[in-house]
C-alpha cells in the first residue's frame, strides 16, 4: 500500500506542553483523511509539521514518500496548504493573489494569469477577480485561499479547519470543491472540529485528543465501535423533561443526557426501548417524539474523549482570533 501522507510516532513539544505525543497516521493515495479532535488536540501542529512549517521533536513524517525535514524542498513542491485563517493578501485583488503565487512558482506572467483565471472560474470568483480581497465575504476569502493553495497543482493537500467560521451555505460550497479535487486524484488531510464534516468528506478518520490518537477507522466503523444506537425522546410538555430524564437514566444509566428539549441515551440493551416506554406510560408522561437512531460521530466523540467537541478558540498560538468568526462558528455548530 502506498501512503501519500504518513506519520510515525510524531512528537512535538512547546515548552512544557506536549502538543503531539507520538501520533501515527496514514492517508492512502487519492483519499481524504479526516483528522478530528477538539481544540488543543494537536491537529494544527500535525498539519504544520507536514507542511514543513514546524520541525518535529521526534518520529517521522513523510509526504509522498519524502521526509518533511530532510527533503523539505520536495515536500513544499508537492503540497498545497490551506491554513486555519484565510491567508490572502487583503490589499491585492483576487487575480493578483493568485498571480503572486504563480509567479513565485516560476510561471511566466501570461501563464500565471491564465492559471489565475482558470482557478477564479472554477471557484466562482470571476466577478470578484478585480476587487481587493478585503471586500470579499468570509466564504469568498476561503475559496480564494483554497484556490491559492492549488495554483501549483499540488497532488497532496493539507486543509486545516477550512470551513471554520463559514455559514452553512459557504461550507457546502467548499465541501463540493473538495470532493471535486479528490475526484481528480488529489489526496487530502483535513482537520476539523465538525464531526459531520469528517463524516461527509473523509474516507478514514483519525481522532486525536491531547496529542494522542484515540481512535481510527472509516466513519461507519467508528460509529459501530461505540455501540451503534441512540435512543432519543422528547416529552410534549417541557415541564416533564426532568422527570422523563430521571426515568431514562434509571433504565439506561448515567449516560442519559438532556440536550435541549430532548433526552438521549446510548442503547446497549435491546430491552431499553420497551422498558423506557413502559416507565413513561406508568408515570403518564406524554411523548412527542421517540426514536432509535445510529449514534452520530458527535456521540462517538463523547464516548471516546469523555467530552463534547466544542468549537471555541482556534488552536493556533499567536493567531488573532476573529470575534465575529467565533460567534458565527458557535451559531453554525448549533444549527
Amino acid at each position, binding site marked *: 500500500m502506498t501512503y501519500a501522507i504518513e506519520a510515525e510516532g510524531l512528537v512535538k513539544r512547546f515548552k512544557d506542553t506536549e502538543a503531539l505525543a507520538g501520533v501515527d497516521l496514514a492517508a492512502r493515495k487519492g483519499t481524504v483523511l479526516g483528522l478530528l479532535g477538539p481544540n488543543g488536540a494537536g491537529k494544527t501542529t500535525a498539519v504544520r509539521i507536514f507542511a514543513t512549517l514546524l520541525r518535529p521533536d521526534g518520529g517521522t513524517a513523510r509526504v509522498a514518500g519524502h521526509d518533511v525535514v530532510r527533503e523539505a524542498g520536495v515536500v*513544499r513542491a508537492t*503540497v498545497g496548504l490551506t*491554513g486555519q485563517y484565510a*491567508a490572502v493578501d487583503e490589499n491585492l485583488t483576487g487575480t493578483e493573489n493568485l498571480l503572486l503565487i504563480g509567479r*513565485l*512558482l*516560476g510561471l511566466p506572467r501570461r501563464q500565471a494569469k491564465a492559471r489565475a483565471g482558470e482557478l477564479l472560474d472554477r471557484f466562482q470568483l470571476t466577478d470578484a477577480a478585480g476587487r481587493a480581497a478585503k471586500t470579499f465575504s468570509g466564504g469568498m476569502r476561503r475559496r480564494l*485561499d483554497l484556490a491559492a493553495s492549488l*495554483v501549483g497543482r499540488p497532488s497532496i493537500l493539507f486543509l486545516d479547519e477550512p470551513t471554520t467560521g463559514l455559514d452553512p451555505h459557504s461550507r457546502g460550497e467548499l465541501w463540493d470543491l473538495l470532493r471535486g479535487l479528490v475526484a481528480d486524484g488529489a489526496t487530502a488531510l483535513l482537520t476539523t472540529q465538525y464531526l459531520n464534516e469528517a463524516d461527509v468528506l473523509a474516507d478514514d478518520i483519525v481522532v486525536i485528543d491531547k496529542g494522542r490518537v484515540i481512535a481510527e477507522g472509516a466513519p461507519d466503523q467508528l460509529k459501530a465501535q461505540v455501540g451503534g444506537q441512540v435512543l432519543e425522546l422528547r416529552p410534549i410538555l417541557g415541564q416533564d423533561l426532568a422527570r422523563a430524564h430521571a426515568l431514562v437514566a434509571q433504565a439506561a444509566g448515567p449516560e442519559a443526557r438532556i440536550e435541549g428539549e430532548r433526552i438521549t441515551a446510548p442503547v446497549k440493551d435491546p430491552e431499553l426501548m420497551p422498558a423506557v416506554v413502559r416507565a413513561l406510560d406508568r408515570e403518564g408522561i406524554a411523548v412527542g417524539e421517540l426514536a432509535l437512531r445510529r449514534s452520530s460521530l458527535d456521540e462517538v466523540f463523547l464516548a471516546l474523549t469523555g467530552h463534547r467537541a466544542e468549537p471555541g478558540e482556534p488552536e493556533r498560538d499567536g493567531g488573532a482570533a476573529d470575534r465575529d468568526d467565533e460567534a458565527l462558528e458557535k451559531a453554525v455548530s448549533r444549527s
Partner: protein
Amino acid sequence: MTATTITAPVTASGRVPPLAGVRQTFTMAWRSLVAVKHNPLELVDYSITPIMFVFLFTFVLGGQMAGSPEAYLKYALPGIIVQNTLFMTMYTAMALNTDLTKGVFDRLRSLPIARSAPLIGRITADLAKHVWAMLLMIGLGLALGFRITGGFGGFLLGALLLVVFAAAVSWTAVLIGMVAGDAEKVQAFAFTLIFPITFTSSAFVVVDTMPGWLQAWSDVNPVTHLSDAYRGLLLGGAVAEPVLWSLVWAAGIALVFYPLAMRAYRAKV
C-alpha cells in the same frame, strides 16, 4: 490532479538557486507595491503625513524659529525628510507583522521559494516608497521656496544616503515586526521611540539652546548626523564629518540588528 505539478526550481533540502531567489524577491516586491494601488489610504500615509509636517513646521513654527517661514523651511525641510524616513521604516515593521499574524507567511513558507524572498522583497519595495515620499517632500519644499543650492549631485548623494540609512534601520523594523503582538503595538512602540530621538537632534532646531546634558546626547544622536549630512548635501557645505558619522551609525545599526532580526525571522518564518 491530471496535469503535472508546477513548481519553482528547488533542491530536495529546500535550497533555491540564486537567480530564482532574486526573481522571487522581485515578485514579492511587486506584491508590496501593487497593493498601494488598491489601498489609497496607504498612499495617504506615505504622502499626506509628510505634506502636513512640511506645512506645519514651515508656517506654524517658521516665523518663531527663524524669523520667517522661508528661512526656517531651509533649515527644517531636510530634518523633516529624515524624520519621515525613520517613521516610514515602521511601515515595514507593520506590514511584516500583519503578514505574520494573518497567516500569509505560513502560505509563503509552504511554497518552494527562497526563505529570504518575502523579507528582502518587502524591504526593497519599502525603500522605493521612501524615495517616493522624499521626492514628494522635496517637490513641496521647492514650491514653498526651498532651493537645492548643493547641486544635482548633492541631491542624488543625499537621496542615496537616506536610502542606505533606511535600509540599515529596516533591520530594526524587521525585529520589531517579528516580535510585536500586533500591528498597533508596532505603531505605539515606533512613536515612543522615534519622536524623542528626532526631537533631541538637530533635525528641527540648532542644538545650541539645549541644556548641556541634552546637547551631549544630541551630539552623538544618529539623527543629528544624518540631518546635518542631508542638509549639507542639499544646501552645499562641508559634509564629510556628518556623512561619515551617518554611515558609521548605519553600519552599527545593521551590525547589531541584522543578526537579531534574522534570528527572529527564522524562528517565525
